[in-house]
């Protein structure tokens, strides 16, 4: 965020030691190569008030660099999921700006944002119960010819062709998330953990630039958590960027390049996992006084 380099809420973390000269130099650099320097997702000054006296999300700033796995942690009610909703515009923010891939997106409809390459999962996994597991994945494929009504009548060859390639890809994803044996089952027949996996597979199928994962390890057994972490790491090595909400600190520590901490709707800290783990404010927010 070039325009707001000094948000009072995020004085901890990397920006603490910056001088004015550093900031100016950074701004100049970005002016020369803005695309390279800008994070993939950058939000600043996000405010959402659900009608109470305090804000659910209060002037929050977050950045997700291209190619990173960024973590978002905070105690219950800190506003993490609300922040996700604001980023994907499922809920409209009262104030603030969100830049995705260099474009402002806070005024766009959720489905447009998804098409631009930002796909999210849900805290409680939401699968399309009465569609097959395979159909759940196929739905996520973008730019399908067959999704336009008239094309279903007049472009059948093209559609069949596309379906074939998409199916191939879906099978590969199902193999990688270990659901290949469930391909033709109804998604509603999956267990909670499998649903989490299916959601992730669905997000991947959309070939996004950024995936927002809301508690991928919640309610999942330890072995499966390890598998999920391995998968996320693998996809990240293939170039996918992630923003992950997670309460399981082991997951955060092992996966993330950078962690942002929210508490009571505000930025508390941001930094590397090690920095966060030793930050007294964070410990206090998580463990109480």
């Amino acid at each position, binding site marked *: 965020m070039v325009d707001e380099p000094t948000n009072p809420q995020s004085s901890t973390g990397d920006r603490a030691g910056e001088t004015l000269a550093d900031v100016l130099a950074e701004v100049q650099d970005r002016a020369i190569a803005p695309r390279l320097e800008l994070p993939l997702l950058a939000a600043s000054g996000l405010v959402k008030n659900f009608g109470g006296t305090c804000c659910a999300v209060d002037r929050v700033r977050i950045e997700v660099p291209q190619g990173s796995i960024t973590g978002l942690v905070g105690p219950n009610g800190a506003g993490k999921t609300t922040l996700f909703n604001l980023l*994907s515009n*499922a809920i409209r923010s009262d104030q603030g700006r969100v830049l995705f891939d260099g474009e402002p997106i806070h005024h766009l*409809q*959720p*489905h*447009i944002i*998804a*098409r631009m390459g930002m*796909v*999210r999962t*849900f805290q409680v996994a*939401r*699968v*399309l*119960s*009465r*569609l*097959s597991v*395979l*159909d759940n994945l*196929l*739905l*996520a494929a*973008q730019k*399908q*010819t*067959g*999704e*336009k*009504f008239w*094309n*279903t*009548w007049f472009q*059948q060859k093209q*559609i069949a062709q596309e*379906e*074939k390639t998409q*199916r*191939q890809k879906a*099978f590969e994803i199902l*193999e990688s998330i270990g659901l*290949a*044996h469930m*391909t*033709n089952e*109804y998604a*509603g*027949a999956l267990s909670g953990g499998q649903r989490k996996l299916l959601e992730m597979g*669905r997000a991947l199928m*959309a070939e996004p630039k950024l995936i927002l994962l809301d508690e991928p390890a919640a309610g999942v057994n330890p072995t499966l958590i390890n598998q999920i972490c391995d998968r996320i790491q693998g996809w990240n090595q293939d170039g996918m960027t992630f923003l992950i909400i997670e309460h399981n600190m082991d997951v955060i520590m092992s996966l993330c390049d950078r962690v942002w901490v929210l508490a009571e709707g505000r930025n508390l800290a941001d930094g590397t996992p090690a920095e966060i783990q030793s930050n007294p404010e964070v410990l206090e927010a998580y463990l109480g006084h």
Partner: protein
Amino acid sequence: MVGYLVTLIISTAIYALFSLGLNLQWGYTGLLNFGHVAFMTVGAYTTVLLSLNGVPLVVATLVGAALAALLGLILGSTTLRLREDYLSIVTIGASEVIRLIALNEEWLTRGSLGVANFPLPLGTLTQPTIGSKIAMIALWTCIFAVSGQHLWKWTRRTDRNVFERFSIGESTPTPIHSEQDLATKPAQAPRLLAGLASAALGLFIYGIGISALYDYSYKAGLMLVLVTVLALVYWRLEVSVKSPWGRVLKSIREDEEVARALGKNVFWYKLQSLMLGGAIAGIAGAFYAWNLTFINPDGFIPLITFQAWIIVVLGGAGNNAGTILGAIIYWSYYSATRFLPDFLQALHSVIPIIPASIDDARLGAFRIMIIGLLLIILMMVRPQGILGKKEELTLGR
């Protein structure tokens, strides 16, 4: 007898067409439309009034369908962004408003006096030549041959292969669990039985059609046109709902939030579904008018909407074949109970305790009672509808 059966086929086909529209909206997209008859009203009046002013019937029908779709656009664009309950409230209100407009705007619709003497399809064809008779019978045969072929394919499919289209192409690594596949083999028998029953029914209808077309009357011609249109609509609908377009509709039915998060323009798809379903109901309206050869607002009461709901629920929501089957069952029941007085008479001659006749008012109430009872039993035994899939009901969200 043939004449009566032809009337029955026409009524069934009109309601099947009408309910196919509702099935698209509710069965596939999950839109609660409680005012489906509004689309029919618009379609019927538009077609009839335009054709009275010299517009060719085909054009008039298409304009009627387009106006019905426009009504869907208006209703949808105001309510589809809200939760689904609002749509049901608005549609039921709109259907009454449309009916009351038809009742009160006498300059246009002649109010409760109704509209009559409008042009009918094949209306000028009173004495067809032997050549045109053969052509009509050939068309009739064609429809049934194609339907029969599809029925044959359906019967041969194993239940497991409901997802058959997924395994097209040899390169796809479909995981096959042979023991599971074997386990579902016996489930073939009911399917075969259903196929045979449908084939028998189809042959019966085909036979009636042939004899009706041979002894040509206006109704026979109408039946031919109507069944042709029904087959076309069914075919095109099946193509669409089995395509990625239909997949998006179903995903909206399941969880529109997910569809939105995956980049689908949920609002636009709902609107398309509402408009297309409305257009189909509009076409059904045209046939409704041609069948009665007289329309007035009393013919478009909310009850018609709920008859369509009964048909869709009976056959199994989200299943076009089920909807047609639902219409057939509904109308068979309705016609069968017409012969209840004769039946009672016959019973009376054998067992004198049973009354020889009941008066018409009671008979009407009795028929409705029985259909209510049948529906309750169906919902207890097969809550998913006749062709619905049981698994789909037991799935958690």
